[in-house]
């Protein structure tokens, strides 16, 4: 079976969890509060079931075909890897901002990203980072007195959940 078709099927099945959660949660609320959520989540579940069924049929159909080109599968693997890399970068940036604040975190992220992914020299990377962060600092902190997040390590308020 073509990997990406299976992947899609899996995703669609998992997606059912979302409206299902809303449906179950909504049942515990008062009349008016649950009216629309129940209605919408039921409709979404039904529609999504149809999507799952049609995806399954397509998957079953495609497994009967000759494995045309295997170029699909490595491409999917490659894509998933790339997605995970960029998400990891994004999370790294977030963690940096959370602990050392926006300015420092951006500096660190920007410089390391340019150096590692855009393959610039570390000098250009650092320079670029300083320019961008400098712009943000100048505009927001100097001109507008807008406090940017200073990071948990530097005494920023812990966000409330």
């Amino acid at each position: 079976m073509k990997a990406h078709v299976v992947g899609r099927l899996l995703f669609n099945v998992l997606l059912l969890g979302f409206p299902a959660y809303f449906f179950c949660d909504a049942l515990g609320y008062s009349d008016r509060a649950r009216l629309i959520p129940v209605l919408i989540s039921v409709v979404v579940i039904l529609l999504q079931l149809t999507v799952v069924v049609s995806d399954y049929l397509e998957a079953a159909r495609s497994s009967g075909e000759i494995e045309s080109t295997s170029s699909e599968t490595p491409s999917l693997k490659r894509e998933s890897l790339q997605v995970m890399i960029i998400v990891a970068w994004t999370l790294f940036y977030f963690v940096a901002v959370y602990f050392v604040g926006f300015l420092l975190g951006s500096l660190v992220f920007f410089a390391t990203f340019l150096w590692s992914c855009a393959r610039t020299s570390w000098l250009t990377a650092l320079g670029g980072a300083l320019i961008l962060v400098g712009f943000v600092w100048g505009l927001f902190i100097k001109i507008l007195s807008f406090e940017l997040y200073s990071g948990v390590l530097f005494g920023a308020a812990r966000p409330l959940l």
Partner: protein
Amino acid sequence: MLAKIILTVIVALFGLSAPPSAQSQYPDKDISWIVPFAAGGGYDVWARALGRAMEKELPKGAKIVVKNVTGAGGRVGTTQLYRAKPDGYTIGMVDLGILPFQIAMGPEKAGYDLNRFSWIGVFAEAPWTIAVKKDSPLKSLKDVKTQGAKLRWGVLGPGETHWLAAMVTTGEMGIPFNIVSGYGGVSEMIPALLRGDFDLCPVLSTSALEYVKSGDLRPIAVLDDERFPAYPEVPSSKEQGFNIFSPFVRLAAAPPGTPPQIIKVLEGLLLKALKDPELRKWADSSGRGYEIVRPKGADAARTTMDEFIKVTQKYQKEMSAALQVSK
């Protein structure tokens, strides 16, 4: 021997000029003023205007910086104030509309306790007005009592100040409390009243002023013991025979545990600012002059809060029922 004398003198000098606690140097840098609501709104403009007036008394260069910290109907900003360092460099405003949540959840889970704030003072106070649209058949609280169950009250949402005022009113009058709610702010609610979405609503006397002047809104009662000076022909709720206590106060507070000397300084700054002629001019021209009639200091603020909490506790059951926020 000489050395000993010099040493003693030095020690004595140092002893005399030993720096007392921070109060003599306070305030020596910028003070943050947390406003739990959006820029441009009622609390915000007050904070900015007051801040400017208070800055005049601060040492050169020290400013009052307004910070809008919005969310959860004012609770995010208030919680931030509650947790801030009690060194006098962070103060803020507290809106009474967050009290029901504390009563429903308990201070532990709510994250703040209105009983424990270090109150600085009441800088503005205005009575509620019960208003209807110009051509409404309701003419007085008597009509409201007669029509009782057929009436729809406009409020912003369960737990906030308009809702509290309306609940106390209907509670005291013994009539059912039907609401039309969900409005994002007073500026959405008033056109809704004029449009006929609901029959009457509580509105702050100062906010209603312009609409009363233009004839769009008709006040039928002022929820207070006295009449409201801007429209003295409207009888108070007391005159109409109902004893309704539901104040609207704008309170300034500091985090719990702020040293009393610092509170004294802040209270002084606040009361002085309220007498500032420039502030008065602003207040009068923007319609808020009526709110400064009876400014109160820290102790009076404390008393007002306690009374208010007592009255609100009376309706605890209704509040917990209306606010389904705990699982």
